[in-house]
């Protein structure tokens, strides 16, 4: 074992060294030192391997007949169901409809939250005026507002967009205000002393300074949109992934229910990875 080789080394180290750092770590042990770096390909390798392991275990358990297919179908069955749904049930179209709803509501929330959040943190009176209302609405559970939303907007697209917007705007606006609050005063003052107006300081300095954390918050908020989407589509819809899942449930087609859920997860994962990649490229200076 490596232990045998390491001990003489450790003995020759000065006695003042911290005992915890004394033993030279082996490759595996070293990776579990608190906050130790992980060499480049290993993160991806571990992520893929663990995903495959979980799926394999699941498949194995299902095939052994340890679970009832009605409640817990095997991954292969879910995949087959998904294939069927793509070819006969217009699954791609439903996914597209859902994606449009999510992005529509998300962009609407973002376009409103960014200026309002910046104004709330930049101008004290605006913050004082809006914070109580926003904080109140933020804690209202979206599902509880479904009936109200239907009374207001009927059962069309407006209701769905409204519910998604409701779930994200009020959270996002406070996150934006926080991002803006963290912009150092020195940045503003530097801008002023080279002749910037308030508007220029906001646009060229504050917005730019908060952009990396803003994009991160948008990415997280986009994930929430998908959560609320299902609520909106289950209540009143004849299209979208939420509708597909809910319709499959009625006939106890568990593989199809799971296929719908899995597809949402896949779309979410892909979008998130894409946004992360863009983030890394756009903010190389971080």
């Amino acid at each position, binding site marked *: 074992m490596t232990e045998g080789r390491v001990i003489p080394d450790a003995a020759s180290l000065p006695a003042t060294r911290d005992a915890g750092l004394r033993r030279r770590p082996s490759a595996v042990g070293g990776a579990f030192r608190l906050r130790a770096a992980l060499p480049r390909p290993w993160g991806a390798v571990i992520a893929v391997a663990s995903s495959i392991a979980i799926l394999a275990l699941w498949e194995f358990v299902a095939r052994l007949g340890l679970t009832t297919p009605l409640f817990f179908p095997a991954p292969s069955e879910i995949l087959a169901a998904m294939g069927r749904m793509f070819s006969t049930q217009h699954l791609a179209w439903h996914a597209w409809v859902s994606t449009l709803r999510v992005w529509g509501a998300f962009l609407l929330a973002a376009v409103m939250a960014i200026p309002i959040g910046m104004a709330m943190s930049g101008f004290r009176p605006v913050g004082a005026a809006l914070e109580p209302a926003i904080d109140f609405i933020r804690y209202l559970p979206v599902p509880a507002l479904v009936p109200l939303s239907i009374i207001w907007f009927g059962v069309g697209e407006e209701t769905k967009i409204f519910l998604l917007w409701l779930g994200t705007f009020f959270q996002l606006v406070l996150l934006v205000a926080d991002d803006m609050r963290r912009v150092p005063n*020195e940045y503003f003052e*530097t801008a002023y*002393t*080279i002749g*910037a107006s308030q508007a220029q300081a906001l646009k060229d300095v504050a917005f730019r*300074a908060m952009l990396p954390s803003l994009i991160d918050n948008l990415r997280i908020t986009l994930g929430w949109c998908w959560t609320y989407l299902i609520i909106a589509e289950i209540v009143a819809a004849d299209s979208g992934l939420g509708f597909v899942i809910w319709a499959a449930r009625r006939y106890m087609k568990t593989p199809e229910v799971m296929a719908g859920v899995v597809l949402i997860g896949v779309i979410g994962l892909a979008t998130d990875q894409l946004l992360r990649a863009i983030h890394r490229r756009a903010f*190389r*200076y971080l």
Partner: protein
Amino acid sequence: MATAPTPHLVFDGVTKRFGSVQVVEQPFDLEVARHEFVAFLGPSGCGKTTLMRMVGGLDQPSSGEIRLDGEPVGRPDRRRGMVFQSYSSFPWLTVGQNVAFGMKYRKDLSEQEKAVRAERYLDLVGLYEFSDSYPNQVSGGMRQRIAIARTLAAGADVLLMDEPFGALDALRREQLQAELRRIQRRDAKTVVFVTHDVEEALFLADRVVVFSKRPTRIVAEIDVKTRLGEERTLEMRDGDDFFALRREAIGVVRAAAGGEL
């Protein structure tokens, strides 16, 4: 010297309070000549930074007036540039872009003139070859040079520096001090430099204004220019003259701090 000092920057009975806190209680008077390098030396919380910020237009006097060339200073503008101790450069811009940012709002220069000027000031502070690096890829000392170059590129007549070298290690600090003094003489800038480091104040300034702890008051002015001359080199720092002056100054500062230093 050939030119008699003309009052360039004037503090005329300036006081400042933030809410109920009197930062500068007694009316503060001071005249700074054109191209003079003045250091404000004093313990933390003595109001020296507030006085400097008011020159920059970042704070307004509660009473009294600050005048630059006879005109009361109002809102911040590019003629009075600031260099802060931290967050002095923008991390999302390259070194070159940071320096050019100083001219972003100048309409009197063409794009080409701006580019030429940016290069000139990058070169002046020795950052030319780091032009395409980002601030987090260069040392803390270089980041402060970015700020100095940006302020000069903006066209500031008065440099307002708030402990700009406070976060640097001793060796870098000495080197940057010598460089700042050289640039100030070459470009003939007026500088107000806030510090609590006696040696730094003496090495850089023509005149050191020593502040007492609150209430803000000038307890002494040290005419460094007469004692050491205008040229400052790193070798001087080890000389007997500098050493003697330093000892005197430390005595004055200790007395001002009332044993609280």
